[in-house]
C-alpha cells in the first residue's frame, strides 16, 4: 500500500501545474471498501434497450474515453466501483487468505482514490482505472501481444494470449491492472475470467460491441445523482465528452509521461 501511495502521489507532481505541490500531497486512502448494500444493479434500466451486436470490425474513427469531474465525485461514495464489480463479475471472486492480503490480491478495475493537498488541506476524490493511453506502456512491454489497444482506443488483455508474466503491471504508471491469483467459478458469460491472467478496465467492451451508450460506472454515478463521470467518443467534436472537455479545464494524470490518456480529470 505504501508503495502505491508514493507512486500515485508522484502522479500529480507534474511540471505543467504550478498550483499542485506534489511533494506535499499525500493520499489518505486508496481502494475503497465494498459496502454491502442491497442494490438493484444501477443503470440496468438505462441500457436495457439492447442495440444490435457489431457486425463490422471496430475502427479508429472513434476513440472511447472518460472525463471525470472530481468536484462532483463524492466522499464516501463507491457506487462506480461497486457497479463495475457487478458488471464485470469482480464481486464473484471468492476471498482467500487473510483479509488484508485479499484486499491486495483481489482483482479490481477501479480504485477510489482520495488525495489531500497537505498545504491547503484540500481533499480530492477520484476513481482511478485503466487510463486507456494512446501509447500504452503495457502494450510496449507485453512479450506475447496479449496486451493490445483496440482500434477504438480501448486498451485490453487478450486472455487467450496472456501468459501471466505481469510485465504490464510493472509498466503501468497507474497501477491499473490486476492479476487473477486463483481459480474462479460462476463467471458471467460476458466476462470470462481465470487464474493466471492479467486484466483491467476495458470500458465495458461488451457494452461497446452491443452499441450501448455508456459504461457501468457512468450509469451508477448518474443513478447516485453525481454525474461525475462522462463517457464518450473523444474524436467526435459533438459528443458530450468533447463538449465538456472544451468547457472544463482538465488534465491527464502523469501528463509528463506523454501517454495521451483517454481518461481525463477535471479539478485535480
Amino acid at each position: 500500500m505504501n508503495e502505491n501511495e508514493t507512486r500515485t502521489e508522484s502522479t500529480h507532481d507534474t511540471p505543467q501545474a504550478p498550483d499542485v505541490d506534489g511533494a506535499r500531497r499525500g493520499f489518505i486512502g486508496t481502494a475503497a471498501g465494498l459496502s454491502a448494500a442491497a442494490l438493484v444493479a444501477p443503470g440496468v434500466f438505462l441500457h436495457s434497450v439492447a442495440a444490435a451486436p457489431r457486425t463490422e470490425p471496430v475502427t479508429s474513427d472513434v476513440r472511447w474515453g472518460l472525463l471525470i469531474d472530481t468536484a462532483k465525485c463524492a466522499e464516501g461514495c463507491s457506487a462506480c466501483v461497486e457497479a463495475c464489480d457487478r458488471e464485470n463479475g469482480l464481486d464473484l471472486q471468492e476471498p482467500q487468505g487473510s483479509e488484508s492480503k485479499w484486499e491486495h490480491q483481489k482483482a479490481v478495475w477501479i480504485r477510489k482514490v482520495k488525495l489531500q493537498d497537505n498545504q491547503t488541506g484540500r481533499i480530492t476524490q477520484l476513481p482511478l482505472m485503466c487510463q486507456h493511453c494512446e501509447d500504452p506502456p503495457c502494450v510496449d512491454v507485453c512479450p506475447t501481444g496479449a496486451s493490445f489497444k483496440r482500434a477504438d482506443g480501448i486498451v485490453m488483455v487478450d486472455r487467450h494470449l496472456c501468459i501471466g508474466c505481469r510485465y504490464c503491471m510493472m509498466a503501468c504508471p497507474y497501477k491499473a491492472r490486476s492479476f487473477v491469483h486463483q481459480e474462479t467459478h460462476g463467471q458471467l458469460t460476458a466476462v470470462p475470467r481465470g487464474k493466471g491472467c492479467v486484466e483491467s478496465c476495458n470500458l465495458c467492451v461488451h457494452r461497446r460491441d452491443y452499441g450501448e451508450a455508456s459504461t457501468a460506472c457512468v450509469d451508477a454515478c448518474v443513478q447516485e445523482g453525481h454525474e461525475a463521470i462522462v463517457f464518450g467518443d473523444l474524436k467526435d467534436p459533438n459528443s458530450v465528452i468533447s463538449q465538456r472537455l472544451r468547457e472544463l479545464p482538465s488534465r491527464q494524470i502523469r501528463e509528463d509521461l506523454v501517454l495521451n490518456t483517454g481518461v481525463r480529470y477535471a479539478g485535480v
Partner: protein
Amino acid sequence: MAKAAVRIGLVVLGLVWGAFAAQTVLADEVKRYVVEGSPAAELDACVEPTDQMRRMHMEFIKHQRIETVHEGIRDTKYSLTGCVDCHISYDANQNPRPIDQPDQFCGACHNYAAVDLNCFDCHASVPNRPGADAETAHRAAGVLGQVASTPHKEASEQ
C-alpha cells in the same frame, strides 16, 4: 479381355457397394452428443452441417475468438457463448448443467475423444448474464432457476 473388364467392373462395383454399406452402418452407429432437453435437441441443424461441425468446430471457434476479442464483432454464428446457449441442458429444477461436464454436450464428446479443454476455466459453462438482462435471457432460455441460485445475486444482497 472383355471378360476381364467385366470382372474388374464387378469387383469395383462390389467395393463401392461395400464402402457404401459400411458407411451406412457407420452412420447408424455414430453416437450423437446433442443432449436431450437442450434447445439444440429441438432444432434440425447446427450453425454448419453436422459433420462439418464435428470436424471443424475448434477452427470456427478459434477464428471467432480473434474476431470478437480484437475486432469487436459479435454477430457471427461461431460464438462460444452461442454454443453454450444452444447446447445447454437443464436438470429437474431447471438449473442449467455445466456444458463441460463429462455427461454434457462438449464434455461427453471430449471425454470420449480424450480432448482436454481449459476454455471453461474462464468461460461460463452455463448461460450466466448479469442484471435485468440476465433475467430476460434466462427466462428466454427457460432457466429462471439459475437466476435465483446465482452467486452473483447473493453477493450483491449480503
